[in-house]
């Protein structure tokens, strides 16, 4: 009895990750975190900056994503994102760079509320990784 489904993460450059034995994925959807299990209804949603958790038999993995779209259909979860890092590989200096970038963006006054919100989110998440 399998409770597993397939996850595919693609970024513009390449297919980032394909995993067949995933039992649950927690995505930072725009309106809050969302856990996806097998046989979830077909859904399209998009992501805000946050931590993407992939739970599988071969171990759990955490990724930091900045944006993206999720599509779940027929037990296939596709995640399209332009910025994704495996938290394991995200070293301190890289993380600080990202944090600095995000903080600078959040400080800007001429940006829209929407992008301000996104920048704030980035800062928050990046701080929490530490």
């Amino acid at each position: 009895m399998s409770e597993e489904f397939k996850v595919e993460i693609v970024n513009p450059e390449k297919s980032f990750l394909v995993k067949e034995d995933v039992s649950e994925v927690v995505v930072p959807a725009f309106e809050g975190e969302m856990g996806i299990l097998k046989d979830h209804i077909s859904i399209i949603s998009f992501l805000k900056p946050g931590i993407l958790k992939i739970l599988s038999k071969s171990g759990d993995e955490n990724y930091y994503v900045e944006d993206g779209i999720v599509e779940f259909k027929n037990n296939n979860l596709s995640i399209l994102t332009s910025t994704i890092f495996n938290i394991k590989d995200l070293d301190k200096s890289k993380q600080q760079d990202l944090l600095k970038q995000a903080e600078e963006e959040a400080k800007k006054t001429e940006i829209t509320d929407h992008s301000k919100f996104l920048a704030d989110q980035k800062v928050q998440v990046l701080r929490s990784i530490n």
Partner: protein
Amino acid sequence: MASLDDLKKRIASVKSTQKITKAMKMVAAAKLRRAQESAENGRPYSEKMKNVILNLSNGISNKENAPKLLSGTGNDKVHLCVVMTSDRGLCGGFNSNIIKKAKSYFTKILSEGKELKIITVGSKGNDQLKRMYGDKIIENISFKESKNANYFDADKVSKIIIDKFESSEFDVCTIFYNQFKNVITQIPQAQQIVPLDNKDSEDKASDESYEFEPDEDEILVNLLPKNISTQIFKAMLENSASEQGSRMSAMDNATRNAGEMVDKLTIQYNRSRQAAITKELIEIISGAESL
């Protein structure tokens, strides 16, 4: 007839040209492999993106309020053309093919009495277009510094396009690039990106219903600008693979031509050398006979 010395120099010069073209071919071949790989790796993203947008636009509740990037401004007056070419030359017909395609489109647009605006990406396209359409070019973008096509650059281009769209500077946007088919075939493409053109894929859309969170309109508003970046990125990847492929076959031809030329010149050189020897012999013999 050229003297022996001249011929010798000529042969040496052709040989060194051949060496250069050969080296360029090798470099292009190595780069081609990488570019082709990334073009193929990039395809799933743009295809998935297209599918999602397709599903979304089918599911959208009221078509009138659809985001302008999807449905267009309702006008068809000002056309923006983004002509994507390379920054370097010596790649056969690569740039000329795009330009040719673009020019025929420009003539069509202008003959219909519509306004034309051009953005050139890559300096070669700008060089070729500014003579005839100099006053129409509103922007010239070049990514000479970046080695490979990357998403960041594509994003920059798309931001410019979206800004211009939002300040209502154009109604329709088309991008021109070369699609990579194989090393010897690249097909110049004209792809309309604003408003979104999904005529060709309409039948493929699934009728499956999706749940949307948040609702369709909001997702679309966020997704459409991303789609433009993706499409431009795809065009850039295809373009860079095409450029290297085109350069490789051009340099292969050049190397072969140089080889033929060296052969021809060598024969000519040997002939005239022999002719000179024979002439000298005749002179000696006739000199001896006359004694």
